[in-house]
């Protein structure tokens, strides 16, 4: 794994960090006329997180990734944060209009009665105009991940990721209920804000 760490570190510093900046600017250009976007961000996956993912095992103990540098598709992740739910489908349409995806999914909790992570995820080809002699295409991954979320979906996901995935201990049953409660609050807040927005626009 030390080879993977070193290889990824090199790719991270030399390719992924500048490519993430270019990608963010590229997406900004494509959505510049779209209202109510809170922010657009793109980041290169950190070396520690990449190595942790590369080391993941399957249920039967085998390595999940035989060639992590080729197989891990979120080495660059981009995010579009929108004010209201109403704008999500419009943004999804726009993404499909200007980008080519090999995957598009709406992530919702497994059961209707549960609350948790919500978001729209895409695996997209990098646009070829992002590459040049300084940033050659051959050294870069083929894909990046794009997430489209509302402010509340984003806020909950970030806090949840920070609090709920601690390596030293798992959350207790009560703490898990706290997390589910905040997810439900975010879900409700999204809907109420959206309703207010629609009423305000139509009045």
């Amino acid at each position, binding site marked *: 794994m030390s080879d993977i760490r070193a290889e990824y570190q090199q790719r991270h510093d030399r390719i992924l960090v500048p490519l993430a900046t270019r990608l963010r600017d590229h997406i900004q250009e494509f959505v510049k006329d779209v209202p109510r976007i809170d922010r657009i961000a793109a980041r290169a996956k950190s070396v520690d997180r990449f190595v942790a993912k590369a080391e993941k095992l399957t249920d039967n103990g085998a390595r999940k990734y035989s060639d992590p540098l*080729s197989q891990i598709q979120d080495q660059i992740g981009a995010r579009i944060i929108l004010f209201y739910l109403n704008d999500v489908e419009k943004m999804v349409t726009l993404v499909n209009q200007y980008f*080519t995806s090999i995957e598009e999914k709406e992530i919702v909790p497994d059961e209707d009665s549960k609350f948790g992570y919500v978001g729209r995820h895409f695996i997209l*080809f990098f646009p070829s105009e992002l590459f040049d002699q300084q940033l050659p295409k051959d050294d870069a991954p083929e894909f990046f991940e794009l997430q489209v979320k509302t402010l509340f979906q984003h806020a909950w996901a970030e806090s949840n990721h920070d609090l709920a995935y601690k390596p030293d201990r798992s959350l207790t049953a009560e703490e898990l209920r706290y997390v589910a409660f905040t997810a439900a609050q975010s879900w409700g807040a999204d809907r109420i804000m959206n309703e207010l927005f629609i009423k305000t626009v139509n009045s």
Partner: protein
Amino acid sequence: MLVVFPSCNSDGRRELRFGGTAGKIVVIARMASSHRIDSGPAMSFTLTQIDSFLVDTNKSKKAVTGTAVPLKGTLFDMLNRIFQNSDAECRHDIAFSKSQDGKQQNEVRDLMIDYLSAPSQRTGMPLAKRLQSVTTERSGMGLLFLLTGSNATEERLVVSRFPADSAILADDSGGGLTVQFLEKVFMKSATSYKAAVYRAKSLSSGFWQGRAVDKQVNGDLTISTYWIEEFLNSGFRITPAHGTRRLATYLREAIKAEEDIAIKESLIAAAQLAKGFDGQALTPESFCKQLKLSKEATQALLNRCPNDDVKREQFRFNVEEFGKQLSIRTVQLDNGGSLTAPADDFNRVFRQDQVDGKAGKVQFTTQGVVVDDRLRKDGRQ
């Protein structure tokens, strides 16, 4: 069906033996000189398996038959040239479509991965059957070749289809002349095959994009939906809106930056004519070529492209998207005058005022330094 020619001869005929009992199949290698390739650096991939399948039309209900092709001899030499030269010959950037429910899955890619994992007649047969299932009477019978190999870092798969033709064989070897009608002849010429090439480091995560060519249709930039969409379940790698927006942006930037008035006018004229390309496959390079732009105007546009891939990447031109990004506004007056400028700049360049008391009468004013003043006659400069 049986192949009748017992051995390879000097004009490149080579036999292929399929299962069956009757019929004649001849493969003739006839490569145009411009399509010959040299051995050398391009030969870095080693061709390790060739499988061939006789694919009829979907109405024929015939079983697909196939045979492995030996890795030596004249037929191998011809197919190896196709294999080695595939990156250069296949010009259309394509990508597999995701599944209907948005999953990262494509049935044709799955079949290719199965084949690449263990290349054989058995693993290649599902691809041949799929081709037969989408082959109409119009496309007719064809010979499908699956060519696979690798270099130090990548696997490569070339899928190629030769349509069936008929021919007359003249043979004077016995002292007299005999002629024979051949009902199934497959020719590899510059104008008679379809192909697609895929290469990737990882079988599990790669092979999502490739390049394709269709030499059976007119023009370098045309490709049949039968080959790309129906058989390969793929589309162009960039969307119509993306490719069109990119071209319009480069054109707009070139018009704005260009100081030579003749080049600027030429680029403006190109923007005005662009709507005629609606629905057609284009690249920035072919856009310049088809409009016969001067070398200087072509350079002014292509210099805006950040790399060679962008200059050559195909997309389907979308006139609506082009209009959103770049439109040229021309106002014609009843006094014989006309005014032209990029639409988003028009009101800055020309000031428009109503003329008092004259319904519909307007006055345009503008200021600037005259950089060119020419008398143009129709059809000539």
